[in-house]
């Protein structure tokens, strides 16, 4: 996950201290990906090394605050301007498990597919319950995250169904 660019995006709005960045990030992303405060500080140190942020002398209180530099702003603009490309795709544990089970010829592939399908369906039901409770006006970020997770779970179910159909068709040939 790109903590680096997230911190630049937050600092572009206003200077902040490390813990403030952690809470601001979690607030804007609806706590979907909690940040370790240690990770925030190590990332800030690297951003400072690269000249993208600069520490500010503490005016009010003992906590170090940080602000974004012009180079940091340029880097952030580049991030916003570049579409995210998943290429090569990340390793997919489920796909690997299913392919290895098929290759093993003796594993209960249908059983693996059915158990996974039921588990993913339960996850989809749980996400849908969260969606029912979310307020579209207040919880937009949370709703958008739920939509993304719901569509990912749906894609997985469709893939499992395709696997089952292709295996059945192969068995009939």
């Amino acid at each position, binding site marked *: 996950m790109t903590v680096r660019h997230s911190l630049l995006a937050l600092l572009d709005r206003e200077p902040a201290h490390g813990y403030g960045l952690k809470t601001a990030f979690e607030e804007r992303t609806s706590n979907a990906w909690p940040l370790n405060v240690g990770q925030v500080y190590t990332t800030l140190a690297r951003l400072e090394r690269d000249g993208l942020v600069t520490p500010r002398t503490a005016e009010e209180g003992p906590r170090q605050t940080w602000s974004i530099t012009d180079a940091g702003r340029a880097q952030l603009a580049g991030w916003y301007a570049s579409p995210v490309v998943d290429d090569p795709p990340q390793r997919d544990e489920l796909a690997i498990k299913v392919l290895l089970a098929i290759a093993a010829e003796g594993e209960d592939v249908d059983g693996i597919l059915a158990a996974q399908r039921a588990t993913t369906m*339960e996850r989809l039901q*749980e996400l849908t319950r969260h969606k029912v409770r979310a307020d579209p006006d207040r919880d937009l970020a949370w709703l958008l995250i739920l939509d993304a997770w719901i569509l990912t779970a749906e894609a997985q179910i469709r893939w499992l*169904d395709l696997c089952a159909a292709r295996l059945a068709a192969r068995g009939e040939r």
Partner: protein
Amino acid sequence: MSVAAPVLEIRDVGRVHASRNGPVRVLGPVSLEVGRGELVAIMGPSGSGKSTLLAIAGALDRPTEGRVVVAGRDLADLSAAQLAELRRRTLGYVFQDLNLLPGLTALENVALPLELDGASLPAARDEARAALARVKMQHLADRFPEDLSGGEQQRVAIARAFVGKRSMLLADEPTGALDSVTGELVMRLLRDQCDAGGTALLVTHDATHAAWADRVLHLVDGRIVDAASSPRANRSNAVGP
């Protein structure tokens, strides 16, 4: 799960069709209970028997084996006339399309089953108006189906399927012809109706719509191969506002 008698009880039910090459099993044996207030979804590939199961549960088709009990009545014990009455009074149906009679307004469509049941016209219309209000369609009560969008027509069909003292709604791909946002509205409505005490059995190929159900049954080659259920009680969850 409540201790009350289930609205639908299917016990070892199967359906075998005769064909030139001998008998073909299209369903079962399957067993299933649906309690009051439950929304149960059935998924499965084409030809898996899901629409057959729905038709049998809805007294539109008879099983060749097993027992079907709807609202406490064993369907095998009912005459054709009693079955027709059960379909009219106890069950509601929503299909993918062509749910409404084109010559009647939304209100008249919803009131029709009550009128057929002998309710007076004013009483039927009052009840139909209340049913339309529950699906937030009261403002379009006087429109004809052709002047309603697909999603609005399905909402009217759901209002009609739950009108009066119906025990259970049977829906076969009710969101099939709708875009995803409208489909979600229809599912939200079904969910609300079940949370208010309605009961529904739903066939869908869309996992995101099935996920609104309390239970999702997966049918393959006429058998339930897995079932996902979602406990009503909230699970603890680390994320979210």
